[in-house]
């Protein structure tokens, strides 16, 4: 098993899709939490395989998209400082702040570097004792262990020139916020499997019970997603509300205990602003008292930030699942991956970018014609 092709088998996919067609008797609205799942659904055309009444609503699980504008502006201000190395994951670089993005800061002389692991940034700090090294630590529970590890290692190595600009967000409070928002349409969730690989799913039975809603831990490959959707539809049809695990090869109930222990030590729960959504109480992590000295926000007192979002951008509605990307008037016109108005058009996990890059600016008929042209080739 190489886990590359096994979960992309077209014939098995068609079989699961037929099963979904046979059990679905009513329309249902299911939200996939994670942006990675959104991209896989749109890239592989999973939504095209579902019965017409089964609607996939795209969730807020794109870390780049929900990072508050104010924090992005702070990142830009810190990155522009001379004698400082600013490290980030790649897809933060093009996210628009109020006036610029990190690419522009880099072009203007800022030392902005893409790293694959926060530990690379710690190594940079050790190699450059005369410079401050800041890592932009954003993300959900998935990326949190590596970010926690970076400050843990920096503390152990006594590095005074490393800090973390941190904006971690958590899935369970986001699900609760969506379910409690007025006009909520979501009837079941596909949970973000990689979040659960770290956290397990012990946090979720009370959520399922409180809101009477099916929750299915789901992976990212086409067959994973179809299986997650199948289980969600079966629960909806049967009127049950269990937490199910459709990603057993990766996720256990308890999750990664070592990682959770480290997270509990390094972080503490805090209120967080979500870009486009607003403040959700107790929905994020910040560095705990023991690690506060590594907090870049404390170390670099950036003041005078005046944020301004694009008046046209409806990223918040997209992130809440209230509208589909193509329903935004700016989609594909004023707002494209080349000139993004909001983060959802930038990130490789953003729903707007998924719709644009995989061609949902074409009508269904046009895509269908493209398909028949292929079939006749």
């Amino acid at each position, binding site marked *: 098993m190489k886990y590359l092709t096994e979960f992309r088998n077209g014939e098995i996919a068609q079989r699961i899709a037929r099963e979904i067609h046979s059990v679905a008797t009513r329309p249902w609205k299911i939200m996939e939490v994670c942006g990675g799942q959104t991209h896989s659904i749109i890239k592989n*055309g999973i939504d095209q*395989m579902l019965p017409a009444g089964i609607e996939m609503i795209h969730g807020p699980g794109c870390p780049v998209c929900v990072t508050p504008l104010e924090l992005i502006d702070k990142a830009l201000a810190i990155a522009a400082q001379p004698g400082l190395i600013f490290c980030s994951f790649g897809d933060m670089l*093009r996210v628009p702040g109020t006036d610029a993005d990190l690419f522009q800061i880099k072009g203007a002389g800022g030392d902005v570097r893409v790293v694959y692991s926060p530990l690379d940034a710690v190594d940079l700090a050790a190699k450059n004792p005369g410079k401050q090294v800041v890592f932009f630590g954003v993300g959900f529970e998935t990326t949190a262990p590596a970010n926690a590890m970076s400050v843990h290692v920096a503390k152990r190595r006594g590095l005074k020139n490393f800090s973390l600009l941190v904006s971690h967000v958590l899935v369970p409070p986001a699900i609760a916020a969506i379910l409690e928002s007025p006009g909520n349409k979501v009837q079941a969730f596909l949970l973000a499997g990689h979040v659960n690989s770290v956290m397990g799913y012990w946090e979720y039975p009370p959520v399922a019970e409180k809101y009477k809603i099916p929750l299915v831990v789901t992976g990212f490959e086409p067959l994973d997603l179809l299986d997650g959707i199948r289980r969600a539809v079966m629960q909806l049809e049967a009127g049950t509300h269990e937490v199910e695990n459709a990603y057993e090869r990766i996720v256990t109930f308890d999750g990664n205990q070592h990682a959770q222990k480290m997270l509990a030590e390094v972080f503490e729960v805090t209120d967080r602003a979500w870009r486009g959504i607003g403040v959700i109480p107790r929905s994020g992590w910040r560095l705990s008292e023991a690690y506060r000295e590594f907090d870049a926000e404390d170390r670099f007192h950036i003041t005078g930030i005046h944020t301004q979002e694009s008046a046209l951008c409806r990223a918040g509605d997209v992130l809440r699942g209230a509208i589909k990307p193509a329903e935004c008037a700016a989609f594909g016109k004023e707002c494209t991956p080349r000139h993004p108005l909001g983060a959802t058009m930038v*990130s*490789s*996990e953003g729903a707007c970018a998924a719709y644009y890059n*995989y*061609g949902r600016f074409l009508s269904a008929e046009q895509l269908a014609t493209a398909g028949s042209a292929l079939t006749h080739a």
Partner: protein
Amino acid sequence: MLEIAHREANELAPNSNSKDAPDFSNWTCPLPLVGYPTIVMGHGGGGKLGNELVEHLFLPAFRNAALENLGDAAVLSLPSGKLAMSTDSFVVQPLFFPGGSIGELAVNGTVNDLAVSGAIPKYLSASFILEEGFPLAQLAAIVEAMAAAAATAGVQIVTGDTKVVERGHGDGCYINTAGVGAMREGIEVGPRRAKPGDAILVSGTIGDHGMAIMSVREGLEFESQIRSDCAALNGMIAAVLDAAGGDVHVMRDPTRGGLSSTLNEIAQASGVGIAIDEARLPVRTEVQSACELLGLDPVYVANEGKAVFFVAPLAAERVLQTLRAHPLGQNAAVIGHVTSEHKGILVARTQMGANRVIAPQIGEQLPRIC
């Protein structure tokens, strides 16, 4: 003196502790350079040091009559008819990578641009921009790689130039090559000539070069090493044109931006739709794995030894067999066709049997957060 050169070379070599790092320890200068083990400003100054580089390094490696005149311009004999001319600059990092170096790239890149235009590549120029402190042993290895690549491709490097920039103002070594070739008679290819019904072929696995470079940069190791596909394609292209000349409508080498950029450009230039089948795209398992790890899509990843052909439908099988009979085309495949539907847009049938658009890429592909 040479011992110093060797030590410096190893210290400055990218990834010098990696098993992939080129080994300069046994390198000996064919005619020892008397002055310095590294490039100094004087090497670009037009004086004695610069002359030494020419006489001891460039001339012995590239030796040919036009170059040996050492005039301000090379004087060349060319057949009558049309000429093709192309130029490209090379700034790759690392300079040495599994499957090649900036030297092979600089020769093959320009050779391939000429070949896919329907020309027979003949002569190249080579200009070097070197950074002060760049080890001569590395420069020599690059020059030798260029000489070997030129010999393989059957072209001559007939003129050149060297400039030196201060330390910190360059990235070791930049190379520009320009080339001229003689257009083949009776061949009319170009990005605007794709026609509905044309079959689309790719000469082998996609994404090898880009992922070879990225694996070295990111220190990724796989069971089998990913090697760049860097190669001169003029021989393989000549075989295709000999077999099906008039039926070949478009030829391109999908370098930066990968297959996606090339196909999107052709769809727009020709005003046609392009439909490809993802299941038919040749991709090495290790390249696919590396792409999955980094969150990249192989259709956007660079190639340096692959060509794409748009051919009349009846010629598709002939071209496929010709490609597969050539050492550089063994993994060739028919990947799709041209349609009059969805003009200007590249659509892929996914392995799930659904359809998606493959949009042109904006700037670089960025690795994802998670």
